[in-house]
């Protein structure tokens, strides 16, 4: 029982790591990035290619890839997201959905249908563990994932709260026009935010590839847990995303204690309960529900 709880918390940190980029993009740019999963898999493929090519550790490869992902984020913002944001709230949804299809199929034509994993590149770390008294097992990779998740989400939160760029990002997220009045170049801020978000997505993709397997079409499967973590934790708040991920992971593991089928249902039930509670507290109008989802104060 204690072990299941511990596994649930570790799993929740993994969800939060996967959800981090999505949460950031939504909080700052007000875009639900449906290509999030596909971009994570793209990041995994790039990191994997470099790790295999030069026979280096995936973590080292990730450090090398990060600047390129940031640049790709900048380009993505300027060429796709910015344009689609201009034509209403629905267009970014459609354009990121289209982007997901394009990325999936480009990856397929380049890498084929093979299933891959980066776990073989890190040897025993993929399945080594520490045994604690009381039947508790802590996987080394799972713990590393949790540490990275807490560091990344916490670091971003501090960055938003304490640094000038963080403040500019928050100001632009609240009201881009007023932010421009006080001398903030909102286009630059948006592009910087997307660049940061892409780096976090590359990290998420790498951990996805270390923990499980990936192939060109693996992106969308991870998206639902990321969404649930964000909604449970309250959109726009990064600490909230971490807590949301942990709540989701623990709920799933408690659900599977009741029945193996309860794993996914347990998570979905908590998700639904939180959504319903928000709806209730927010004053029972769909408009205020949307506003409550868009709470951005860090």
């Amino acid at each position, binding site marked *: 029982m204690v*072990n*299941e709880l511990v*596994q*649930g918390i570790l*799993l929740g940190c*993994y969800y939060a790591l996967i959800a981090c980029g999505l949460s950031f993009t939504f909080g700052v740019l007000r875009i639900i990035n449906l290509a999030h999963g596909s971009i994570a898999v793209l990041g995994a493929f790039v990191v994997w290619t470099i790790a295999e090519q030069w026979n280096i550790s995936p973590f080292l490869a990730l450090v090398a890839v990060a600047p390129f992902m940031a640049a790709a984020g900048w380009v993505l913002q300027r060429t796709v997201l910015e344009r689609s944001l201009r034509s209403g709230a629905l267009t970014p949804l459609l354009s990121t959905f289209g982007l997901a299809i394009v990325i999936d*199929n480009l990856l*397929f034509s380049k890498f*084929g*249908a*093979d*299933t*891959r*994993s980066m*776990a*073989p590149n890190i*040897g025993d770390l*993929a*399945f*080594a*563990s520490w*045994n604690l008294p009381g*039947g508790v*097992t802590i*996987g080394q990779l*799972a713990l590393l994932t949790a540490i990275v998740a807490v560091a990344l989400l916490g670091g971003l939160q501090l960055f938003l709260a304490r640094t000038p760029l963080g403040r500019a990002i928050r100001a632009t997220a609240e009201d881009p026009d007023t932010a421009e009045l006080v001398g903030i170049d909102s286009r630059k801020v948006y592009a910087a935010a997307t660049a940061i978000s892409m780096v976090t997505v590359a990290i998420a993709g790498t951990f996805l590839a270390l*923990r*499980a*397997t990936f*192939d060109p*079409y*693996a992106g969308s*499967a991870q998206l639902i*847990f990321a969404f649930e973590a964000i909604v449970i934790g309250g959109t726009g708040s990064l600490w909230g995303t971490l807590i949301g991920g942990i709540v989701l*992971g623990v709920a*799933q*593991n408690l659900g*599977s*204690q009741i*029945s*193996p*089928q309860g*794993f*996914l*249902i347990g998570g979905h039930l908590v998700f639904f309960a939180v959504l319903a509670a928000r709806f209730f507290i927010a004053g029972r109008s769909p408009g205020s529900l949307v506003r409550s989802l868009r709470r951005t104060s860090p």
Partner: protein
Amino acid sequence: MPNTSSRREFVKRASAVAGGAALVGAPAFWETAGAAEAIKVGFISPLTGPLGSFGESDPYVLSLVRKALAKGLNVGGTTYSVTILDRDSQSDPARAGQLAKELINSQGIDFMLVTSTPEVVNPVSDACEAAGVPCLSTVMPWEAWYFGRGAKPGAPSPFKWTYHFSFGVKNFFDCYVSQWHELSTNKKVGVLYPNDADGNAIREHLIPDLQKAGFTVVDPGGYEDGTTDYSAQIAKYKSENCQIFNTFPIPPDFATFWRQAAQQGYTKMVKIAQIAKTGLFPDTMEALGSLAYNLASACYWHRNFPYPSSLTGISSRELADGYERTTGKQWNQQIGATMSLFDAGFQALKNSGAPKTKAAVAKALSRLKTTTAVGVVDFTSGPFPNVSPASIIGSQWVKAAPGSKHPLDLVITEHANDAKVPIGAKLRPFS
């Protein structure tokens, strides 16, 4: 109302077309000799999408088949030219059905061949059954094909045009019992079967048989595909000391499960880890790293099969070697399976005596008894008229010999389903 009249118009036209089609389909004698000598065969398989691994070697097999048929197919002294129209289902069942209809209605195919998983085979078989086009299929459990499409046990077969040869639950049972007696264990089997079509069919049919054969089965219950944590199940297998493990998961779920089982110390307890549905192809095994060594699997074709392809005359070994030479990739079991589909299909066309007459081809399928790359295909003695069970052979993924081009090798460890298949090695304990 213009709407009503146009609809009436449409019905009239449609029935005229249908009548015309029936006229064309039934009496072939008035057709000119030249037109009668070209056969069109449809072939649908998943080349892209999540099932893309199944279709990966199909272009290679198609190239061999086209080469063998370049001079046409000789049926009873008449040489027919053959066109194979190959289509990619993109792993989408709706698209598979749509492609089948397009091949039937626009291309006017005489015969359909289809392979790999219920997502491709069932919609295509249904379209052919509805349109009255003979269809032969393989590589999916025959129970899911036969009962999954509405046939009832005890009732006569409702299918007139569609035929299927592939493994079934009984084949898995025979293979597993033979395989699991290779090593001494406590005969306790931990099973991880998902709550999906395959998992539930296996749970319902295989578990009682295993219990009758003297195995204790520990089943925590069906989990949902896409589950990302298996602590509850692993704790159960550990507390029950299940030395045999069996699973039918979708491949990504198995990778997650197996690493977690290693983290929690269950893999050190397992003597035989028997996996199905995943572990068919080398790449999914390579993705597991060192945790893949000594996983037991079951294969429907192997490069050491003693049977040559009847259509091309190429031996099983040469089929595998040729694939490795042409593509640089390791051979996989789908090569022989797709080849056997063409072997059996074209044998039926030959036996029919009139490959352009659909009823004659369907009749030839019902009487087909031939040897293909995967072994004997026999529709005269199956459990049901449209079904021919095919063998499944116990095998094991082992670390390849030093100097090998690929990290893993698949070796045959038992042959309860087909004694002609040579055993390559004794089953090794997982840990």
